[in-house]
């Protein structure tokens, strides 16, 4: 939960999230993953934690499972996660499929280490760890591919980063992702997210110049929603405005009209103005929407329209994407498909790179 309300993860904050109107998205996304199992479902014996922690959604997907632990009741907690993982390790499972973000991945890794292959269905807000599939569908496809493999021995594994950001620091605006270790992840190229690569700074000048150009050409009558990240915030710096590093800031008439805005604020401020969204790209993964900027909801993206979206990123960041394509995972599959196709990404003041955007 948490994305739509503009919180950076809800670890220990779920009450605040609920007050702002958040609803858990984890079950719906897990269902999307499980529905991809198709004919391979017959080959899988599923163990699940009880109720909302797994068994309900497995049942909703029309699959049978053995319930291995029951959550202690009410809000599920890290202790419930730990108990379920311990029981699964003891039962000798082949793969641990989980739904969540970096916090959940960390909790699981604390128990499994690199001894048990794990795979994440991306349902969190922050997913900097390299243990997540690129989408719920990709997670389902990967499990199906593993089950369909005639010789399990041919499956490749790789040690993948478990990373997390201190959420308090994140809320204060300082990014400091920490590496917590390496988990074992089944590997089929194109289906997994890479660990986020930090920009190494070679294209700083080109991005700054592009940001100045975008700032100089701003339409005084439009509302600009400037998404999270270092690339996009250069536009604010070019106008001597200071917004939030990790939130969406709103600019109109060259003034900052909202800082770290949530979906409701953005919708409230659009009024009769045209909206332009300016977003960056998550390094290593290639996400444009649906990772760390969920406040830019499907409704808001539709309001701006395809022509009302600018993507800005450094050339190095784009070239470092292993699969050379960008991703959208807005939570609205129909919108994701509308956004799929080729986009021009601004990489410098006089330079665009054409990138393929893929839907889940």
């Amino acid at each position, binding site marked *: 939960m948490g994305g739509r309300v503009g919180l950076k993860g809800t670890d220990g904050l779920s009450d605040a999230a609920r007050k702002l109107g958040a609803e858990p998205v984890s079950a719906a996304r897990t269902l999307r993953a499980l529905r991809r199992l198709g004919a391979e479902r017959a080959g899988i014996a599923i163990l699940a934690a009880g109720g909302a922690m797994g068994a309900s959604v497995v049942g909703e997907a029309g699959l049978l499972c053995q319930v291995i632990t029951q959550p202690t009741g009410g809000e599920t907690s890290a202790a419930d996660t730990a108990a379920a993982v311990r029981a699964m390790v003891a039962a000798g499972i082949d793969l641990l499929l989980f739904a969540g973000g970096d916090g959940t991945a960390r909790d699981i890794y604390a128990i499994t280490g690199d001894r048990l292959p794990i795979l994440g269905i991306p349902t969190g807000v922050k997913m900097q760890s390299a243990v997540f599939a690129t989408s719920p569908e990709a997670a389902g496809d990967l499990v199906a591919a593993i089950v369909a493999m005639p010789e399990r021995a041919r499956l490749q594994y790789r040690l993948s980063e478990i990373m997390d950001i201190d959420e308090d620091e994140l809320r204060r605006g300082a990014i400091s992702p920490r590496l917590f270790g390496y988990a074992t992840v089944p590997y089929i190229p194109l289906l997994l997210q890479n660990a986020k690569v930090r920009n190494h700074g070679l294209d700083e000048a080109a991005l700054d110049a592009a940001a100045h150009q975008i700032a100089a050409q701003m339409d005084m009558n439009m509302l600009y929603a400037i998404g999270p990240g270092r690339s996009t915030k250069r536009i604010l710096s070019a106008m001597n405005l200071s917004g939030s590093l990790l939130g969406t800031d709103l600019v109109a008439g060259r003034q900052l009209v909202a800082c770290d805005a949530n979906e409701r604020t953005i919708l409230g401020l659009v009024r009769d103005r045209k909206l332009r969204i300016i977003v960056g790209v998550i390094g290593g993964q290639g996400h444009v929407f649906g990772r760390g900027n969920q406040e830019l909801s499907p409704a808001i993206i539709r309001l701006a329209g395809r022509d009302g979206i600018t993507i800005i990123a450094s*050339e*190095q960041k*784009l*070239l470092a994407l292993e699969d*050379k394509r960008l991703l959208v995972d807005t939570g609205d599959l129909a919108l994701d498909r509308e956004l799929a*196709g*080729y*986009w*021009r990404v601004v*990489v410098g003041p*006089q*330079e*665009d*790179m*054409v*990138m*393929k955007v893929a839907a889940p």
Partner: protein
Amino acid sequence: MSDNPIHLRQYHAPVWDEPVVMQLGYPGRRGQVFPQPSAAAIDKVGTASSLIPKGLARTNAPALPEMSEPEAQRHYLHLCQETLGMLNISLFGTCTMKYNARVSEAIAQRPFVADVHPLQPDESMQGILQAIHEFDLGLRALSGMDQFIFQAGGGADAAYTNCVVTRAYHKSRGELKRRNEVITSIQAHPCNAATAAAAGFKVVTLNLEENGYPSIGALKAAISDRTAALFINNPDDMGIYNPDIKEWVRLVHEAGGLCFYDHANFNGVMGKIRARELGFDACMFMLHKTFGAPKGGGGPAVGAYGCTEALAPFLPKPVVVKDDKAYRLDYGRRKSAGKIREFFGNVPQVLKAYAWLLAMGRDGIDEASDISVLANNYMDHKLAQIRGLTRSNPQIAKHRMEMTRWSLGTLKTDTGCGTVEVANRMADYGVDPWWMSHEPWIVPEPFTPEAGEMYSKEDLDYWMAVVAKISEEAYANPELVKSAPHNQVIAQIKSDALNDPAKWAITWRAYVRKHGKSSEAGSKPHAAE
């Protein structure tokens, strides 16, 4: 290739530990002593120095090495020995290396070439103009274009020529203001994007996709009424030929843009395709590589630029033309984009390329492209058996053209030895280290060998045996490779100075200025950095 039947030579470069030429010799020593003019001659025409116009005479004597002829000869022989002699097996990388025939060099040194001045009257250099014109006709036959010029001093300069012609063309139609975008691909030669940016165009870059080249969908996303031109190589440095190229050209033309074929990788397709028949408006050949004239340290370069009749009025001037009776330099071109470079090109190089073209003939050129593609595919097959090497776009089964981009990413991950380390070690086996592949490195630790048609099968086998040996060494003893070279003139070079304007020096004067006069006495600048 571990049970290697090829005998790797026990090579060691001579270590001369010799100062640079400016630090050799002795004040007053001379290689040639000329007789003084007679008093009668001086009486009649004055002293030699009085004959030099005042504006051209220097006020201080030049700082030249003062040495005897054998000392100078010996020094340059030593330098040649210390640099692998320039006649080695050099598959270089992202570059077509060919033997530069001595007979062509001899032709270019004949007085009718060497003693001609570009400002002398056309009537007095009809032979040179005829050779340039006839070579132009040869390139027209290879490309289908209507006019070539040779002003550009290299491939990038020819790409820039295309920029100014493109600008002039759109300006003449009143569209230049709107048409300000040049489309190119990430693995086209970087000079395409660079020259377009230098000429004031916005650059739109296409990425390679599953097939190893950009998709038509990506091209369509880039094309608009702002499109000025497409600048493209085919094949690009991955070595994969884009079979949709005709459709690409059609789409760009439909949007009102021009299409430029950068023929830097012509070797694999020469005699097989003609740029004009694929629809292109202009193309470029590198005479210093593809056409057998020297490249790099061997001499000045020429980028031959050709275009259709429709673009010809915008070409830089002068253009060599043939009238009823004679050849002449046509300067009276009203719509010309101006000048790219002085005069009409590096004529000796044009002559060498013309000699190469005549020696090869149509069938020879056709056969050479066959051999270069065959040689590369032979190498593709053999290199694939070496541990730690992977081919770019491994999922693509179809054959590559005249070169293939390879990756040492696996070797680097496994052993810590990448493309720089392996290149350093190659020099220990007496072959030229490969040149670094063009940026951007979209495959990790790349190298891009190009066999061409000149190297024998034995040469290619030897070269690959060296790479295989170094791979074995990297897995057995990575430190040996990382600390290479060991059998060379000097040990590993620290490249820091190359990136530091306060330290680099490409002339003696700059060296003394940056490193001080004291460095002259007894120091060895060539061994230091």
